[in-house]
């Protein structure tokens, strides 16, 4: 009877699959499959723990805390209070005001960022002298620290010690000088302007990336057919960039819903809640108002709004892919 010698470790490593004995191949296949799963899990786990520890667990805890009246000072004071926090939301004029502000923020910043980024992407997509410089200049605001920029803004618009009012007066626009962040009618538009300036650069590059992936033959065919530049843009470029537009709009909506740092540093939601947004109101409730439960309820509403947007995006994408 012929016996087949068990291959050595070296043979398992060096023989090709076809050269290896059949039983060895079967053992190796399952061995390889098992090693791959273990290896994959091993590399995914650290990322998973970070994801769970810094995103999932806080998210779940926030939702759970929204059903309590916890004051945030000691765990022994956590007590459930049902849906009282959510009932309180409906009757809270500042919450409703903040919701409106977030809506205004969302609508204006998304439209302005998308239009500005797309227009500039059209302008700089083709190579021209200085094109690289302009692309760099446009993206710089998006890499600046939000805190630093907000503090600088406060200094610049100080009516007594700042630079904006003297500048306006020096160029004959003194009628526009005044209180910027201290005027309830101006403060929110100023913050919207800041947010657009900070964020359009990233969208510009998303559009440029999308434009670079467009098939050149479609544009050329349009030119051959006599399409003018604006017609090419409107009837060819924009429809082909539909997925990019959807992505940019979704990102813009999410960013504007969770706006916090610029508002908190520049105005803290003032004057008298005229720039209050959901995140700043939740922060006040949790860390100054001793109402962590209520603050969590506000953030849960923000979460639901973000999820709704994400669902719309996914459905729109699926519909777009089918078409």
């Amino acid at each position, binding site marked *: 009877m012929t016996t087949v010698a068990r291959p050595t470790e070296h043979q398992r490593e060096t023989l090709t699959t076809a050269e290896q004995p059949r039983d060895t191949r079967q053992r190796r296949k399952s061995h390889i499959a098992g090693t791959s799963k273990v290896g994959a899990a091993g590399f995914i786990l650290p990322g998973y723990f970070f994801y*769970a520890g810094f995103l999932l667990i806080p998210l779940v805890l926030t939702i759970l805390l929204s059903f309590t009246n916890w004051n945030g000072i000691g765990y022994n004071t956590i007590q459930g209070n049902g849906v009282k926090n959510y009932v309180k939301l409906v009757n809270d004029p500042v919450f409703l005001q903040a919701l409106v502000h977030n809506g205004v923020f969302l609508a204006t910043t998304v439209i302005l960022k998308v239009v500005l980024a797309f227009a500039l992407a059209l302008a700089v997509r083709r190579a021209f002298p200085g094109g690289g410089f302009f692309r760099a200049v446009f993206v710089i605001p998006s890499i600046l620290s939000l805190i630093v920029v907000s503090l600088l803004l406060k200094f610049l618009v100080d009516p007594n010690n700042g630079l904006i009012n003297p500048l306006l007066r020096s160029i004959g626009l003194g009628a526009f000088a*005044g209180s910027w962040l201290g005027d309830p009618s101006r403060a929110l538009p100023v913050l919207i302007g800041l947010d657009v300036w900070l964020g359009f650069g990233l969208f510009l590059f998303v559009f440029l990336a999308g434009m670079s992936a467009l098939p050149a033959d479609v544009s050329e065919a349009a030119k051959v057919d006599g399409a003018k530049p604006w017609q090419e843009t409107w009837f060819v470029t924009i429809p082909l960039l539909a997925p990019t537009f959807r992505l940019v709009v979704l990102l813009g909506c999410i960013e504007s819903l969770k706006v916090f740092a610029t508002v908190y540093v520049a105005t803290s939601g003032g004057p008298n809640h005229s720039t209050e947004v959901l995140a700043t109101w939740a922060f*006040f409730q949790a860390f100054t108002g001793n109402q962590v439960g209520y603050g969590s309820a506000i953030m849960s509403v923000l979460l639901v709004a973000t999820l709704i947007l994400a669902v719309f995006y996914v459905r729109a994408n699926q519909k777009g892919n089918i078409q």
Partner: protein
Amino acid sequence: MSARRRRALTSLAVLAGSAVALTGCGLSNSSSGAASSSKALTVWHQFSGEGAGAMDVVISDYNKKNPDAKFKGRSIANDEANTVVRTGLSGNNPPTVLQYEGYQQTKDFVKAGQLLDITDWYNQHVDDFTYGDSQAVKDACEVDGKMYCIPWNVDTSEQLFINPDIMSQYSLTAPKTVDDLKAIAGTLKGTGINPVSLYAGDGWPAAHWWFLLTIQRCSVDTIVAAANQDGAKWDDPCFLQSAQDLYDIGQAGVFPQGVEGQDYNAMLQLFLSGKAALMNTGTWFNATLADKATKPKFETEAVAFPQVDPAKPSQQILGGFTNVFGLPANSGNTDAGLKFLDYIADPANGAGAKFAKTGLVNVIIGADKEMEPRVKASYDAIAAALALPGNNVIAYFENLVPPSVGEDIMYNGTAALTSGSMKPQDYVTQLQQAAEAAAAG
């Protein structure tokens, strides 16, 4: 890649993941209620500038005498303190010794079981403190008859700081009445100089103006009754009158343009840069004046806050023990904390004197000998008010009411009054509604 190398990398990845998981799960060396543990000894405080320097010196001196139990200080910015302290306390990572603002914070922390009862300790050391057994100290530190903190510095806002160079340039005299203040605004109109430096973006600088006017229109007892919603309401006539006073002062052009848009730092900058004749803020500003980095080019003076009715001048004081030290109950090192309190409360160690030298009104016995005349005047004014019969010293109002009333309506509403964007009746109505909602829970 060899199987051996794959296994090694896999093991490393799993180990790394486990380490992260264990760290994330918070293997804290919980030592709730323990008198001593191996945790680091820390003092968290909100002093800055010269005050922070004094704290560093006190800690350093303590450490030299106690090399086996060294403390480390941590200065927390005032506007971050709410977040940092709450996170530390609730995250079971409190300091050994905590400096905070007393009053409502004392009540909140005690209710959460986060402060150590130091009644016995305080009773043994009460004579180390001026005003040690006063009602004002008890308001800051006592809950249900037990003491949970010690007074350290007392602050009052009963003064206007003056730029004498501007006053003499425009032939102005220090205002004794609110009408004098409005007259100064008329004189300075169009000169580019602001009568008063006030930026109410943080809320409390404007609120302090209203508090000062309210003490003159109402009385300390009425204010306390309104805060407790027991015998007075925030929309009573005297509160409406003081809100009207603040509104009228704003309409007279006393405050700068954009009063609601900037913060306390910008307010200091406006005064220290010589662009405003007057500024109202607390006695802590003396420490800013003593700091070489922020010392102005002019010699500042301080005068009493103007009266609304010179025929009936008020003797009552807005101020309080908003610098207190307490011991977190769950620090694990309460013994070391008590020892630290022993050290700083002992006049012989000079800890209080070090703070007094920086311009702060410290209340350790003997510290007043180190105070500059301007600071000593505030110290004496508080002593005089405490010596009068009845309750004549009241803490800043936000310390007496829930945050939804104080830090929300009082701050935002008074800031809006100064700019004229809110009417006095609306302000007091909102204030009373907020108080009722807070009382209803």
